Every structure is written in structure tokens, then in C-alpha cells.
């Protein structure tokens, strides 16, 4: 039997296929959110699905983040498997109450009587000159909350397969899709039928320094690693994939080998996911380190509109490479 050839698709198409397949596979699954139907999704992820799957399964909602996210929680409690799309994480703040006070608490607060098998998808990140109110990276905030699982698919494969695993999880799962990834093209290996939502992955092996990242920063970090390789520095790139619960074992294993680490996070530095990763390394692998931990995060400003300022605020391959270089070959 010959393997089917790999197909080349966009990240957006991978997300779309994942939603379509999930709805076709399980009568309990439906998608709801603002403009997911007639408009086709604000990032065109659900284009064509309303026509194919109908209004019961692809539900356009009013601009009521709190109500439709809460309705997703209620529907999950009452036996459905909703996929709720919040256009972008910037607007998820209007549903924060439902996410934090209901989805994340009800299983524990009810003594285990109810699970909340809800999937919440949202776009995250900066890079399209959308200015401060449309450029937040809030996944690190949500990763603070016990009871949630936080996913950051960075690859076509994860975009295609994480959703099914998230729907199979009895707990609320938040999926953050970086806006700069939707147009990315790549190969999807048809032999891969699913992925885990528990483990980090090494996206590039290396022995000299570990670069820990996720989501939209993965490809910038891989570009940095390529640059470093040209200089004789072999960087290992870890894609966290799952921001809560963190796969600390994978981080420690890599750091123990390379003894140097840079954490790359598009979130702001203060009180961030990068801070959490760094502290865990300090707690668990301090004596394995040969150099201080470095971080490359967004500058602590509301992300500006002007292209040069926006780019200056975000992690870049050059800043990532410089941080790694500084660890491996400290200036004399």
C-alpha cells in the first residue's frame, strides 16, 4: 500500500478542515461565534461551512461575547461539544467572567458533578498593523488559570489535529491561533491521523542552546536558529504547543543537554508565561545551567500601528539570535 502524498495547504485551511471533520464526526459538535457563518469567519477560517453544514451547526451570534461563551459552557454541561470562536483574544476580555468564573470553576466547585467539555478558539498576536487594541497576546494570562488547557498550534499539523484532541478532552480547552500563521503554507502528512495535546516538541535539535517558544514566534525562532547554525551555534528549538499544563519535563531534558536557554514569548515580559517557564527552570534545573536564562519578549508598550514601531516591539529573529549568541559566546 503506497502512502498518500502529502498535501500542501494553509494553516487557515487546516483549521477549517479540523472544524468540518469534527462536526461531521459527532452530532454533538457545533461552531458558534461572531460572523462564523455568512461572513465565513473574521479570518475566513469557516468559509463555506454554513452552506455545507447548515445553521444548526454553524451559528452566527450577536456581538455578545459573554452570552455566547457562557452559552457554550452551558451547552457543554448539558451534553453538547461546542466549538466557540471568539474573533480574537482581544475581545475575549468581554467573556473573561464566563471563562474564569464559570468554565474554569464549575467542575471543582461542583465537587466533580459537572465537566465543561468546551473548546474556545481565538486569534492572537500582533504583526498586521492593527494597533494596540487588536494586537494582544493573552494566552499567557489564560495559562494562569487552573482548570483550563491552553493550546498554541504553530504548525499545519497541529492546526489540523489539535481540535479533535481538544474536543475529546472533558475540560475547557482554549486554542490560540496566531494571526500571522493563517496564510502560512505547509505540507500536511496524511499518515498523521492525530496529535497529542500534552507534550512539547523539539522542532529543531541542537546541542549548544535551547530556544523555548510557541505559536507565532516559532518560525521567527527557527529562522534565528538557522542564522545561528551558519555561525556554528546549534540551537535546539522547543515548541511548547501546550501552554497549560506545561510540559516541564521536555524543557528540563533539553536544558540539561544544552545548559543554556532563551525563552521567546510574544507576550509582555512582566508576569508572563516566559517568566513562568524561566522560574520552573530555576526551580528544577538551576544547577544544570552554565549561563543566566535570557528572554525575548514583546516590549512593554501597547503595540503601535506604524509598521517600524510594531516590528520593533515584537520578538524578531535578530533579537532572538543575538540573545542566544550572547549566551553561547559571551563577549570577552
Amino acid at each position: 500500500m503506497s502512502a498518500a502524498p502529502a498535501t500542501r495547504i494553509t494553516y487557515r485551511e487546516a483549521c477549517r478542515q479540523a472544524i468540518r471533520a469534527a462536526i461531521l464526526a459527532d452530532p454533538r459538535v457545533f461552531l458558534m461565534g461572531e460572523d462564523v457563518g455568512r461572513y465565513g469567519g473574521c479570518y475566513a477560517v469557516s468559509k463555506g461551512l454554513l452552506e455545507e453544514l447548515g445553521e444548526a451547526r454553524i451559528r452566527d451570534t450577536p456581538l455578545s461575547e459573554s452570552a455566547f461563551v457562557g452559552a457554550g459552557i452551558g451547552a457543554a454541561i448539558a451534553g453538547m461539544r461546542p466549538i466557540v470562536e471568539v474573533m480574537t483574544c482581544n475581545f475575549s476580555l468581554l467573556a473573561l467572567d464566563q471563562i474564569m468564573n464559570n468554565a474554569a470553576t464549575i467542575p471543582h466547585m461542583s465537587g466533580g458533578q459537572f465537566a465543561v467539555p468546551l473548546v474556545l478558539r481565538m486569534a492572537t498576536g500582533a504583526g498586521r498593523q492593527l494597533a494596540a487594541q487588536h494586537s494582544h497576546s493573552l494566552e499567557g494570562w489564560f495559562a494562569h488559570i487552573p482548570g483550563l488547557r491552553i493550546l498554541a498550534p504553530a504548525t499545519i499539523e497541529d492546526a489540523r489535529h489539535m481540535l479533535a484532541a481538544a474536543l475529546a478532552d472533558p475540560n475547557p480547552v482554549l486554542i490560540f491561533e496566531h494571526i500571522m500563521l493563517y496564510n502560512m503554507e505547509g505540507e500536511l502528512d496524511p499518515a498523521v491521523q492525530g496529535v497529542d495535546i500534552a507534550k512539547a516538541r523539539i522542532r529543531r535539535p541542537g546541542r549548544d542552546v535551547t530556544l523555548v517558544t510557541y505559536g507565532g514566534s516559532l518560525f521567527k525562532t527557527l529562522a534565528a536558529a538557522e542564522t545561528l547554525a551558519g555561525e556554528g551555534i546549534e540551537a535546539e528549538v522547543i515548541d511548547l504547543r501546550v501552554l497549560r499544563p506545561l510540559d516541564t519535563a521536555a524543557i528540563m531534558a533539553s536544558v540539561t543537554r544544552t545548559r543554556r536557554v532563551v525563552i521567546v514569548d510574544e507576550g509582555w515580559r512582566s508576569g508572563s508565561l516566559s517568566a513562568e517557564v524561566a522560574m520552573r527552570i530555576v526551580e528544577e534545573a538551576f544547577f544544570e545551567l552554565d549561563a543566566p536564562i535570557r528572554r525575548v519578549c514583546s516590549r512593554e508598550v501597547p503595540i503601535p500601528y506604524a509598521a517600524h514601531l510594531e516590528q520593533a516591539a515584537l520578538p524578531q529573529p535578530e533579537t532572538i539570535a543575538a540573545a542566544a549568541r550572547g549566551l553561547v559566546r559571551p563577549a570577552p
Partner: protein
Amino acid sequence: MSTKVHLDRAHGLLLLREMLRIRRFEGKCAELYQAQKIRGFLHLYDGQEAVSVGVMQALGPEDATVGTYREHGQAIARGVPMDLLMAEMFGKVEGCCRGRGGSMHIFDRGRRFLGGNAIVGAGMPLALGVALADRMQGRKAVTACFFGEGAADEGEFHESMNLAALWRLPVLFVCENNLYSMGTPVGIAEAETAIWHKAAGYRMGGEAVDGMDPVAVEVAARRAVERMREEGTPYLLECRTYRFRAHSMFDAQLYRAKEEIEAWRAKDPIMRLRDWLERAGHLHPGDMDRLEAEVEAEVAAAVAFAEAGTLEPVEDLERFVTMDEVPR
């Protein structure tokens, strides 16, 4: 279920008994709070019993209820056993939520009682989802969603009313208008103090009823629920009521006059129904004493159950933060 309410002896005594169960249970809770057996926030329902008892007559076992943090009465009227409730307030593992929720977070899966929510208004979106799920799964159930008039100040109220009407979700919105949100009178929080009028803006049916009269509430709730089962449309039932006691155990009640409270106490739903039943010849001599004795025994048994309860081992602290499977 019929919309007609036959207020015969049996039904009259049932309503009376249910209200009495709530009143006496909570009287005991207040005592136990002073004795420091119950801690945290405790919001009593004293005065509002007719609302839950009336509404619950219209619901069947297949229906769902979303409550507030003032939900002991809602839970008891829904059939949540008193002993599980009391043990919950004692923080015992035998409590309905293993002592993790306490007074404000009563859940009972078997009775489809979905909390106990201490964020004002936050239960309303949940109710939409439950109703949507019921409809998508072909169940004829309705969801009763309780909230105070203070919740009508919140965006979640308006978002939920709109979505429920838009999607024709079978949610019975039950507003318990007790005139105060903590110490804020409805008149300085709401531009339109007749909460039920807000339904019209969402093309939803609604009405106000005397929330001190369980029969009036029951009649209105039955009518609404029956229509809802046929047409699927939501409904806003504003029950005009009053809480006789403080907002919580930490409230000096500086914001209202004793005379006002006394005037409302004269409309006590329990006394009123008792007197009416007596006049109608439905309440026989000795009935009241018997009811009181039975309820007292039930409450005492609940306290004994809670006292005898055990504490969840601390090793289980993180259990259920995430679930291994969806409970069936």
C-alpha cells in the same frame, strides 16, 4: 402539566410546607452561622420563598434550573435534599459539592440544578446554553434561570435576553425583584424599574406577579412554561418580593427603614397562605403544628447529618480541577 392550579387542601398544604421547609432551614442556618458552624457568605431567602416554590411547581424532572448565590430556597424547592445542602455549608465531603462550593454554589446533577452562581448575572448565559443543548438534543425541557433585579443592571442580562429571544430558547427568566441590590434601591440603579418591561425590547413576553403569593407565581410560571414547551420561546417573569433579613450576614441595613421591613412582613407569604387556607377551610386544626414538627425534624436531621459528616482529605484538594471524564 396543566396550567390550572387547583388550590385544594393537598396542593395548598404542599405549597405551605415547601415554603416552611425553606424558612426553617434558613432560620437554622442563621443560628449555625452565629455558632460559626457555617462561614463565608450566607445570603438568606427569608421573605422570597413564594418565588421558588411557585416556579418549581411548573417544572418537571427533565427541566433545568440555574440559580443565584441566594439559592438555598431555589435548591430546596427544586428537591435538593436538605442534608446534602447543610453538609455542604458545613464544608463536609458529604455535602452536595463535597464542601467545595458552600452556600453560594449548590449544584445537584440529578436534579439538574446547575448552581449556585456568585457572580451577579453570570448564570444567565449558562441557562441559554443548557436550553440550546436541550433543544439540539431533542429534549422538550425548559430551563428556569433565577436572578435578582440587580442582575438586570449587568450586560450579561441584556446579552442573554437578546440571544434567548433571537434563538427562541426555552428559558424562563425569573427575576426576583426584592427592591435592593445589597444597599442600592432599584430606583437608583435602573432607569426602568419595572424589570418585566425590558422584555418588550427583545420581543419577549413578560409579566410582573406578586412574588409574595406562591399561587400567583405558580399560575404565571405554569402558563409560561406550557407555552414555552410548545413554542420554545423564552419568557421574563418578574416576581415582586422582599427579603426580610439583611443582604448577607455582614449587613447593618443602613439603607432601609424598619417600618418598611415591617410593612413587607405583613405580606409574609407563609402567613398569607396559611390564613387563606384556614379561611377556605383547607387548613385543619393541628395541621400547622404537625407541619412545623415535621419540618423541624427534617432540619434537625440535616444538621445531624452535617455534624456527623467528615472532611475531605487534603490530599484530594486538586481533585476535579480538571476532570478525567465527562460524568454521565
